[in-house]
């Protein structure tokens, strides 16, 4: 969020319980201004903080004339002295993704690779580098990931000029309340990915000067955002469930908006578990669910390709409804688990197209495969 509007903005995002102490607020008011002067930024954003076990990193971003250009990032441990971070590289991001656990709070801390692929290891040893990752580069990668995944702005807040640069839209007067509640009114403030894949029909209604970014509407996984009205319905607050701690606020019909991150720098991967079961347990719904799952998940689809899935819908009160996703196999298998009754859907078996296997399917692989699907369907 804009450094200039920081004090007011912190009040608006305080609903999550995280904020800055009076000391930090006061010091940021001074040091961010100096940053702007020293690095000749046009704008300075206070990005947020990543909490480590023994300390926290405070992060600021500096913007140049083109707002969509890569931003300079700086971090500080005490909000007084700031150090410039080098730009993130793809390699850094890939390495950091393998790291687990909390940040330590010491930029020179070195992580050891927990898992090294054989190829990676060879390459690393050839290079003569030790397989270590400094916390600083993990910090860079994490900020990059967060900005890429959940750094958002309201629609129309920035415009793309015919020359390609992006500026604040001086005519932006805020979203209306109805618009502000929709995910489609918010954009990822990063290089668009899905925009190119849109069909001509979908692009027809887009305004090239404002709709030059991806909207949140089709984010994967679905349901990774919560939209709430806070402070008596005067502020729209979006929280990411993927990166817990990222809060975006916007006061409808005003220019006030921004996002801030107060978290541990840890991405939540079990989000699908949090989705609620579709209300109607109609078979077509389930099929849709499974179909989308099969299409979405890349790895399991290699296994699942060319198989039929026989499943039962179990509803207390409703008789078992067997269904088959693809193909026409009609082999029934007894339901062995008493717990099954509580779940609405149970995929009983995955049957390969050619040889219909019955009992042997209850192998361990079946169970795990089965389970992969369950993850989606139950929850």
């Amino acid at each position, binding site marked *: 969020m804009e450094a200039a509007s920081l004090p007011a903005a912190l009040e608006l995002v305080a609903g999550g319980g995280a904020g800055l*102490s009076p000391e930090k607020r006061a010091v940021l008011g001074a040091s961010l201004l100096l940053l702007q002067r020293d690095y000749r930024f046009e704008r300075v954003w206070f990005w947020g903080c990543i909490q480590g076990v023994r300390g926290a990193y405070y992060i600021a971003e500096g913007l140049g004339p083109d707002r969509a250009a890569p931003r300079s990032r700086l971090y500080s441990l005490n909000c007084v002295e700031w150090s410039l971070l080098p730009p993130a590289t793809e390699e850094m991001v890939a390495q950091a993704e393998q790291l687990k656990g909390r940040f330590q709070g010491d930029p020179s801390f070195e992580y050891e690779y927990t898992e090294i692929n054989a190829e990676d290891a060879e390459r690393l040893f050839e290079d003569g580098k030790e397989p270590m990752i400094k916390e600083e580069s993990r910090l860079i990668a994490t900020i990059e990931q967060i900005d890429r995944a959940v750094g958002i702005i309201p629609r129309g807040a920035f415009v793309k000029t015919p020359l390609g640069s992006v500026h604040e839209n001086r*005519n932006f007067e805020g979203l209306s309340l109805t618009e502000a509640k929709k995910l489609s009114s918010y954009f990822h403030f990063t290089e668009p990915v899905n925009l190119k894949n849109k069909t001509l029909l979908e692009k027809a209604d887009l305004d090239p000067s404002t709709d030059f970014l991806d909207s949140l509407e089709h984010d994967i996984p679905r349901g990774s955002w919560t939209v709430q009205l806070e402070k008596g*319905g005067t502020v729209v607050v979006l929280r990411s469930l993927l990166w817990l701690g990222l809060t975006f606020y916007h006061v409808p019909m005003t220019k006030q908006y921004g996002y801030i991150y107060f978290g541990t720098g840890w991405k939540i991967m079990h989000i699908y*578990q949090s989705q609620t079961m579709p209300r109607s347990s109609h078979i077509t719904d389930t099929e849709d669910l499974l179909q989308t799952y099969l299409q979405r998940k890349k790895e399991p689809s290699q296994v699942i390709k060319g198989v039929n899935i026989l499943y039962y819908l179990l509803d207390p009160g409703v008789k078992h409804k067997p269904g088959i996703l693809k193909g026409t196999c009609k082999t029934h298998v007894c339901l062995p688990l008493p717990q099954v009754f509580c779940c609405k859907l149970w995929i009983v078996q995955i049957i390969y197209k050619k040889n219909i296997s019955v009992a042997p399917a209850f192998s361990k692989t079946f*169970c795990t495969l089965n389970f992969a699907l369950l993850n989606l369907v139950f929850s």
Partner: protein
Amino acid sequence: MAQAPAEPPPQAVPREGRERGLREHLWPGHSPDRPEAYTSLPPQRQPPVEDFEPGRDHYQPQQSEPGLPSCENQGVRQGSDQPQGLRKSIYQPQAPDQDPYQAQDQRAPRQAPYQSQTPVQHLYHPQGAEQASYKLQVPEINISQRYAQRQGSHQAQEARQSMYPSHALGLDPYQTQEPKSAYQTHAVGQDPYQAYERGHGPYQPHEPGYGLYQPGYSLYDDQIPDPKSRMLAIQNAKAYLLKSSTTSGLNLYDHLANMLTKILDEQPTNAVDIIENISKDVKWAQFQKKMDTLRDEHEILPTFEAAEKRKALFLKANGEGDEELEEEIGETPLPNVMETAFYFEQAGIGLSKDESYHIFLALKKLISVQPIQTCRFWGKILGLEMNYIIAEVQYHEGEEEEETEEEEVIEEGGKGMGEVEDKDEEREKEDEPLKSTYKPPPVVPKEENGTGANKYVYFVCNEPGKPWVKLPPVTPAQIVCARKIKKFFTGRLDAPVVSFPPFPGNEANYLRAQIARISAGTQISPIGFYQFAEEEGDEEEEGEGGRDTYEENPDFQPLSVAEMVDSLATWVHHVQSILKQGRCVWLNPFQKSEEEEEEDEEEEKAEESDELQQEIGPPLLTPLSEDEGIQNIPAWTAWPSTNLIPQYAVAILQSNRWPGAYAFASGKKFDNIYFGWGHKYSPENHTPALPPPVQAEYPSGPEIAETRDPTLEEELAFKAAREEALAAAEEGEEEDEEDVVEDDEEEEDD
């Protein structure tokens, strides 16, 4: 002059209101003398004059637009060729008239160096200086001149044409107004100008159209030979501009007028840079109005409702204040939420002040309604749709029992449901001859209210001002299951918890279970603040589960902040930890069943010896230094709220096991709070438990397996053997051998 009115513009529509507004913007700043004359103009207007009004009005924006910011406009004019082409097209029909003016084009460059000044002002110093009035022409000539310079000679002609509208427009008002008193000065002012013009260039007599010059004719008449054709051109141009678009219904003329009005109203800096945006804005505003009337009521409603609710918080406090004050002066269970919030704010933790105060008022309301002995703001759990604000209370001892009775009724209802299910099962069993041998493990009974995990009662509400809802007591099964799942709260207490393994209850139960877990893990106090009661007699009896009561230490000596931060041993848990069983005090779940069902005793004893070992958790008031971290991450992080002013720092503890749980201590004051999603930290991403292994269908063994039918050969062999045997039966010795053969065969079949 007299001829012009005779040709009323066929398409021109006078737009008085808007243009008058525009005119008022245009004039006041530039000529203090004029506004009176001009503003009084409309009433004076006479029918023939009105025909000219479009032209005259048009003159003003045209004249002032290039005239005022003339320097800046150069860029625009030069940069865009479009207007030029546009005008040319308008003037095509008049082509023959233009020829004479080529000569003027050539003259234009010479006039270039003239300072650009506001034409109007010069108009009003008619006698002041001849040169000044000459400059009057400059803005327009400059424009045409630039075109001329920039472009080839054939293009210069176009440029000349582009000059026409402004000239023509400029002329009209003066023509019409000349006879009028208000414009007398005006007319006077033109005389010297014309005189000057006439004597200026040596080529002047050769100029075409020279003969048209009449003294006192008008300001620009040296360039305008034929008012008739000019008027036609103006009218055509205006008619074109007034053409409304087929798609939007707007016309350019109104749009330009609106834009200029807006620009002059708001006076933005660098207006030329943002002219596109202004244009867009003006169009946008036109739609905005309509939408407003439709949406206003609908949109703002939720905000008002919320405000109404918050207002109620303040109102009730005022209304009941007088009566309550007297009672509460002595001792109130109401916690000082604002004070706690202040200490947490020192570490950057906490809600906004408004929200804290609303919670403060909401807690007060809760206390006034419920018979509450102690009350505390426990924290806030974030949800997908709404959030939970949680209050931790203890009832007065007498009142509590009433509450428990109610709960038991509810529980019985729950059991009733179970019985119905049992009956269903029984019916099914009637049909099925086989009886399942599966026995569910005995249900671990929940802890009594006021003890263990149910020591406190929790009230939740979504927002301060909304009604408080009491959460049901937690059962061990819920705690055990809650440990295996990880789900976001929705904010609706009645929402089902869809998970694997299935959670016994709805979201209210899950919330209660998580509160119990978080409390047990993160409720801490400085060492020495609480102490065990001195009755030592009970100790032996309760030795199994540890003592579960404590009292405040009256002699508590607070530690310094530095000590509190340095060592985790200075903090202790004051809430019992929950055992694996889901209870704080271990209970043997098989005890009851032994009494009830003696038949099963033997089996159970066998199981007991294997499984049931008493679970022992850490005793109450265990220092935090005993807490286990998760994979190299310590359970707690401690820091002082500030390093700059250590004298007044507050010791802050942050739980790493439950991100969002904090505690502070400052002197004798301490408190715990939780703000978060209700999830425990896990270094790996959460993976739900795998379903249990698939049950085997039946045990395979010789007694179950079907025997293979003997083949013909075997049968024959068997018969042969039989015969042999019969034959041998006579001889008693061979009997044993036969048996051996038969046995072999059976084994083969298996």
